[in-house]
């Protein structure tokens, strides 16, 4: 109530201040013209700070003579258009000293940021496109068009208009607002929760860039941090009853390391699993579809496994039950089988079919890994001995491929399919081992061959020497 009284009082003081200081523009337009702009202006944040019409439009606010007040000589510019709008705003908004006089803490670099942004050309947007004109409010004012509850609609005015957007970027989707309404963020904001993310929270306000521009706050490798601004802030997220360690886990995950450490932009960020404008946690049944967008083969194999039906019935989160969600680590063979580290034993107990299948699969993979490493050691030894085993080495390259395929086929939980996939690996390892051993045998064969031939030649040399001595003695 007190605030309201202060507001009314300051409004009254401002209006009377303008009238009293003789702002000819406002007085004349209010009394004689009665236009919309003058009608709106008392509600504008600038009006309350004593900024006159002439401060933006130019002219002489002290003159009663319309011709003098609105003459070019007095600097009157009329209704500014295009770049002129921003230059009018900039007169104050890029000057720290002026802004300081009004006690404002608004960043004076806004225009610089805006000019470099995707919206920076005047034919796309100027200050007034988003902030309005003559009734500009503080961004914290619920009446402002950029107040969280209004901002989404403001952006969608252009971004949901397919015909309008075609002029600038025909490839850009125009369904962001529709999707946003289905997201947790969108549903909450519709209920008036201004803490949830709106457009500018993710895309930023003035320095908006295309999503594939590394300067963008939603660029693949920057996005996790953007989401973490809110989602890792335990204080901010209090009341939503969701964990705040997702980012912390994600950076340690195989996806996080690929994207953030290796710079692999094809690795998923938050939005690739949760959606971006329609961000929502994937439901239990849709997990395999979400993961399957990239891991298509695994998803396809899982869908025809006996697990698919059981998981659906028992409401078990598909991929997540074995691999986890935000902290997905590089899968190891340890996850398979019946050891204590195995994920299979979460459901399977000794004696059931799945337990036996898991045990056999693990045994077969371990056998291939051990035999492949032995074969490699044999090749190393042959090479160390100077033998050429490049063909065998080349053939050996197929084994990691077969192991990858085999580890994928695990998702079918089908032992026969698994055996069909892994058996070529055993055959290769057998052939390579044989080639390596043959090469080592050849090495010793050469040494022995040399030894024997050297011996024969030496015997011949001695025999010849004795023969020469014998002949020469006769003489």
């Amino acid at each position: 109530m007190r605030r309201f009284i202060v507001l009314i009082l300051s409004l009254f003081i401002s209006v009377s201040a303008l009238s009293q200081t003789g702002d000819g523009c406002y007085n004349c337009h209010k009394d004689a013209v009665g236009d919309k702009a003058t009608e709106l202006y008392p509600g504008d944040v600038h009006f309350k700070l004593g900024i006159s019409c002439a401060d933006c439009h130019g002219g002489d606010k002290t003159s009663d003579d319309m011709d003098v007040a609105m003459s070019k000589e007095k600097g009157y510019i009329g209704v500014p258009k295009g770049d002129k709008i921003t230059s009018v705003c900039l007169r104050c908004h890029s000057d720290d000293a002026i802004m300081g006089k009004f006690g404002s803490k608004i960043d004076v670099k806004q225009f610089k940021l805006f000019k470099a942004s995707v919206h920076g050309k005047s034919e796309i947007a100027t200050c007034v496109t988003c902030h309005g004109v003559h009734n500009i409010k503080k961004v914290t004012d619920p009446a402002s068009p950029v107040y969280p509850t209004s901002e989404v609609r403001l952006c969608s005015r252009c971004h949901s208009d397919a015909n309008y957007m075609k002029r600038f970027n025909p490839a850009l989707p125009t369904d962001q607002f529709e999707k946003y309404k289905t997201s947790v963020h969108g549903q909450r904001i519709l209920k008036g929760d201004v803490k949830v993310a709106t457009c500018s929270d993710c895309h930023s306000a003035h320095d908006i860039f295309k999503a594939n521009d590394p300067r963008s706050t939603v660029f693949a490798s920057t996005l996790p941090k953007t989401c973490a601004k809110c989602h890792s802030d335990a204080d901010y997220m209090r009341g939503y009853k969701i964990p705040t360690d997702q980012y912390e886990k994600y950076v340690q995950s195989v996806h996080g390391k690929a994207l953030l450490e290796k710079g692999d932009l094809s690795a998923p960020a938050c939005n690739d699993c949760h959606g971006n404008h329609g961000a929502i946690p994937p439901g239990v049944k849709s997990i395999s579809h979400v993961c399957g967008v990239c891991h298509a083969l695994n998803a396809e194999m899982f869908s025809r496994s006996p697990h698919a039906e059981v998981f659906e019935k028992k409401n078990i989160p598909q991929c997540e039950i074995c691999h986890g969600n935000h902290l997905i680590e590089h899968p190891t063979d340890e996850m398979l089988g019946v050891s204590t580290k195995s994920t299979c034993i979460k459901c399977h107990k000794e004696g059931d079919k799945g337990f036996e299948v898991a045990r056999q699969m693990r045994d077969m993979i371990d056998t291939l890994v051990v035999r492949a490493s032995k074969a490699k050691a044999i090749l190393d030894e042959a090479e160390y001995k100077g033998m050429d085993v490049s063909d065998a080495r080349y053939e050996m390259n197929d084994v990691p491929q077969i192991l990858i395929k085999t580890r994928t086929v695990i998702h079918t939980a089908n032992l026969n399919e698994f055996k069909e996939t892994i058996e070529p690996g055993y055959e290769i390892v057998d052939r390579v081992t044989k080639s390596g051993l043959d090469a080592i045998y050849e090495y010793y064969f050469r040494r022995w061959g040399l030894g024997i031939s050297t011996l024969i030649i030496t015997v011949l040399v001695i025999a010849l020497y004795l023969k020469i001595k014998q002949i020469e003695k006769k003489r």
Partner: protein
Amino acid sequence: MAKFGERLFNWFDERYKIRGFIEFMSHKSVPQHRHSIWYYFGGVSLFLFIIQVVTGILLLLYYRVGEDSSYESVQFIVSKVKFGWLIRSIHSWSANLMILAVFIHMFSVYFTKAYRKPRELTWVTGFLLLILSLTFGFSGYLLPWNELAFFATKVGTEIIGSIPVIGKELLIIVRGGEDVTGATLSRFFGLHVAILPGIFTVILFIHLLFVQIQGMSEPPEWEKLPPEKRKYIPFFPNFLLRDLLLWLIILNILAVLAVFFPWDLGKKADPFAPAPAGIKPEWYFLFMYQTLKLLPPKVLFIEGEFFGVLIFTVAGILWMLVPFWDVKTEKGYRNRLINYIGLFVLIYMITMTILGYALS
């Protein structure tokens, strides 16, 4: 059995009169003195040449010349063909040992003045055989089409381009184009397996014929010895058996080298790749290469490189013609200058070769 042998001999003798040749051979003798050891190096060179011919023919069964097949076929020979690794390694080692044996043979003949009248043409044909052996080495080095060979050939043939007026044209003829390409490989192959063996065999035949007709040269100091103080051994079988003994030892050395130090194949030649560091020719060209490298860009009014080529050509010709300008030895006097020149050449070649390895 003995009768059959005699009948066979008679059969041939009736038709080709070989009795006379046998008679000649059985009376042939070789001087025996403290420098006799040097007589064997001609035989060693011949033996190594025979090994080159035999192993070369065997390699030819699998070698396929071409930018896309030379390297691959040599790789196939050393990895897949039964005993291919041994044949290739012996061919490479024997080539190097042959050049070494030819050099030793040449210097021993030079210092013992065995080139003097009446063996002037034996010396000249021998010198031509040396030049042909070096050409064999140079052309054969490129055939595996590996990186080192490619760049060494590139650098080696570039020297030809330094000859004024005709240099560029000559370079194009040698390379089969402006650069070392598959065309160079083809003509080096032709040179190595057809042209050189043909010429070499003819000159070698003449060289051996001269040696057989004139016999081994006796040392100059023997001319003052009374005939009873001159010792001889029969060529057949004594000298030949000694020759054979040395050949067997050389064969053993070759086998050990081929098994313990198999010749590397290296990486395939890539004309677009930058030249690897430390490119240098085979050891027997290194003294010339090092000289050219050390020469200033301009000597008097001519290009340094061409000056070097000119000097080596003139020196080579003078060296070849030594029996004709060394008139002192011919007349039975001691010619120390010849020894000094020989020593200078030998020391120069060894020093430059060592520098070539040390400075790279």
